[in-house]
């Protein structure tokens, strides 16, 4: 049974249909990369999964259970199993780094504050921010904020981690640091969906690649297959452009 199953999911912003029947699955411990041109709906898929945008059709199953996004209790249960790192980081501007990372585990999940703070320190060390515990987001660079956002998501100890362009604001050196963290997580068996434009990274870390265009899945398969020998013209066009850079 897949850990996460998205079938024929639709979503709209007002009258604009941004997802028109998206289907893919993610197995337990699998890393699925979501790729595609800007505006194809990658972020929207992640937002929909955590219940920030109600689906207008289709079904999402988590561990086989269909999720009814109209039922608040069910949405809460789903959010409890997932954590998301937003493309724009979305750190709480009124809290320092440590508070950003510990807030939800302590206040929402009710875990022991000491333990969570220890965990937070370790996670922040791991992403190279051990000395920024008491900095506020407006004192941090984009790359630093992005890494705090990753630590914040990990502190939730999710079953499924959703990462939206987590390397977009990082310089090459830091990309490696963060990729190392993600690699470790993959090795530890975390289920992950990661949206990325970094094809080298996708190739290395993803078990499977799902390519989206205009709100639906165009093609999917193992990285080697889809990146090097895309079957559809649309995918050939996209990877042709992106890989030539």
């Amino acid at each position: 049974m897949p850990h996460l199953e998205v079938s024929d999911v639709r979503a709209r912003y007002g009258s604009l249909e941004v997802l028109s029947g998206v289907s893919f699955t993610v197995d337990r411990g699998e890393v699925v990369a979501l790729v595609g041109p800007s505006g194809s709906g990658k972020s929207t898929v992640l937002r929909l999964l955590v219940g920030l945008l109600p689906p207008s059709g289709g079904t999402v199953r988590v561990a086989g259970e269909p999720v009814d996004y109209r039922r608040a209790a069910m949405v809460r249960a789903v959010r409890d199993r997932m954590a998301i790192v937003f493309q724009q980081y979305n750190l709480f501007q009124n809290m320092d780094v440590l508070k950003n990372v510990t807030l939800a585990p302590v206040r929402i999940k009710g875990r022991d504050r000491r333990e969570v703070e220890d965990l937070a320190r370790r996670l922040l060390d791991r992403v190279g921010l051990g000395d920024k515990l008491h900095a506020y987001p407006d004192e941090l660079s984009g790359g630093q904020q992005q890494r705090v956002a990753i630590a914040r998501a990990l502190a939730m100890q999710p079953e499924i981690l959703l990462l939206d362009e987590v390397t977009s604001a990082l310089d090459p050196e830091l990309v490696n640091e963060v990729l190392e963290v993600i690699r470790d997580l993959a090795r530890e068996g975390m289920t992950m969906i990661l949206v990325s434009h970094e094809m080298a990274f996708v190739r290395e870390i993803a078990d499977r690649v799902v390519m989206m265009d205009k709100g639906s899945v165009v093609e999917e398969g193992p990285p080697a297959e889809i990146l090097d020998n895309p079957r559809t013209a649309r995918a050939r066009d996209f990877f042709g452009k992106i890989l030539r850079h």
Partner: protein
Amino acid sequence: MDRIIAQLPRFFSERNLILLLESAGLTLAMTALGCLIGFFLALVLVYLRKTPGLWALPLRLVCVAYVEVFRRIPFLVIVYLVLFFIQTVIRDASLFTVAVIAICLYATAYTAEIIRAGLESVPQQQIDAATAMNLGRFRTTLWVVLPQSMPVIVPPSVAFAVGFIKDTALVSQVGVFELTFRGKELNNQGFSAVLVFGTIAFVYFLMSWPLSLYGQYLETRLAAPRSQRRPRKIRQS
């Protein structure tokens, strides 16, 4: 002019000064109490006004109606309404209570608009992040949205309250012994109107001006990035 000078020693008698001080204190107390309670009621009102869902439609309508109606009624009319309404409920309600309630009703409607604009100034992404963590509407508002909107909410709210110090003069109409009421009394005792109301005007100014300055100070302080608002001591390198 000669008459004013002749009246000076008698006007600034100990008794009159105490009377003026007391009534100035009363004015400040009414304003502070009314605006403070009004501020908290406005927070509640705005929160209720944003209740999602179809079932909450009547609630939202009531909140909108309250704000729209009370901002369009002259304050003096509210004072009379409260006076007559209260007296049918509680026989011996003090005029001070009446005044505070009236200020409260008015301040709630006004600060509600300030607070609403403040809450709406916080980017949706902040709310999304909180929601995705299961924070819920109440805790998201309390821990994320409200703290971030304080720089937008506090300065105009303080300005409103400070401006209201002078508007409380209207409650003298129903006989609360506040500053303007005492002025009229002293004037009736034969003191020159210029002397009496000149002094009263000066006292109003003295009450408002430092508070306005304080409001401006708060504004610049709150506008500074959060990291610079911390006391230097605990600042990490």
